[in-house]
């Protein structure tokens, strides 16, 4: 309970701090103020990668231990990851329109691989809704949660593997291709988005726990209901 309150408090403080740092950061020499979209676009994409990484790890642990908490963590992290992937796609489009002149490029490797990743993880959420029973649902989701993670390195390295419209990474292990003030603003906003991710993740896990309880109560009610239901004495109707 205290951790959740702490994270909500941190979120309330962190968001204005992230905005202030973004506003104070210098404009780009070529694209001017549009560069400030980077401070929401890039952290969203990074947090989506982290979220799907958490899902993959939690899925592996579920396959070994088969305890519901790891399934809850995996599924909750996917939902938040899909939110951040959607934000990365939308802010990328909003950035692309004035800078590239187009909202979308169907032949761009980074854009298309991110869109495919978005729909695969939406499929993960659909699979959970379509699966019968908690055990079967967790088993199917864990398998997909592990396999689907292969997309994260593909999306990340797509800009190096294919030379299309999207630029290569601005921050990489060797250093950054940006001004120091921009790197600081980006890292501060990465911290802000990490706090937001943790807050939303914990809330989603709490909700998942309630959903499981409600599902168990409904299942118990259905069993009890069928036990006391009167026998069907009528002849079955044949068409």
């Amino acid at each position, binding site marked *: 309970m205290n951790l959740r309150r702490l994270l909500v408090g941190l979120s309330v403080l962190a*968001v204005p701090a992230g*905005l202030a740092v973004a506003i104070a950061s210098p*404009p780009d020499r070529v*694209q*001017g*103020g*549009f560069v*400030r*979209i980077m401070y*929401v*676009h890039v952290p*969203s994409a990074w947090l989506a990668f982290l979220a799907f990484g958490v899902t993959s790890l939690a899925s592996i642990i579920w396959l070994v231990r088969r305890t519901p908490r790891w399934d809850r963590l995996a599924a909750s992290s996917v939902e*938040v990851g899909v*939110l951040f992937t*959607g*934000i990365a796609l*939308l*802010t990328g489009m*909003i*950035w692309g*329109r*004035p800078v590239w002149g187009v909202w979308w490029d169907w032949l761009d490797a980074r854009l298309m691989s991110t869109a495919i990743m978005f729909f695969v993880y939406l499929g993960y959420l659909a699979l959970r809704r379509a699966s019968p029973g908690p055990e079967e649902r967790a088993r199917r989701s864990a398998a997909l949660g592990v396999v689907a993670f292969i997309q994260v390195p593909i999306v990340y390295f797509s800009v190096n593997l294919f030379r299309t419209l999207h630029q290569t990474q601005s921050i990489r292990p060797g250093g950054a291709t940006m001004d120091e003030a921009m790197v600081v603003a980006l890292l501060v906003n990465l911290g802000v988005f990490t706090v*937001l991710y943790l*807050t*939303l993740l914990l*809330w*989603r896990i*709490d*909700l998942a726990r*309630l*959903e499981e*309880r*409600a599902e168990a109560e409904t299942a118990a009610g259905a069993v009890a209901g069928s036990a006391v239901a009167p026998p069907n004495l009528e002849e079955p109707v044949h068409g």
Partner: protein
Amino acid sequence: MGEGWVVFAYLVTYGAITAYAVSLFMRKRRLLPRRR
């Protein structure tokens, strides 16, 4: 230069996060037992 697009991007970002947080709150409230 480009303030309108930047503001639009930030509105979309924080609007989506807020909408998701509210949806979590509403879904949680629906599942909690009702108090008299």
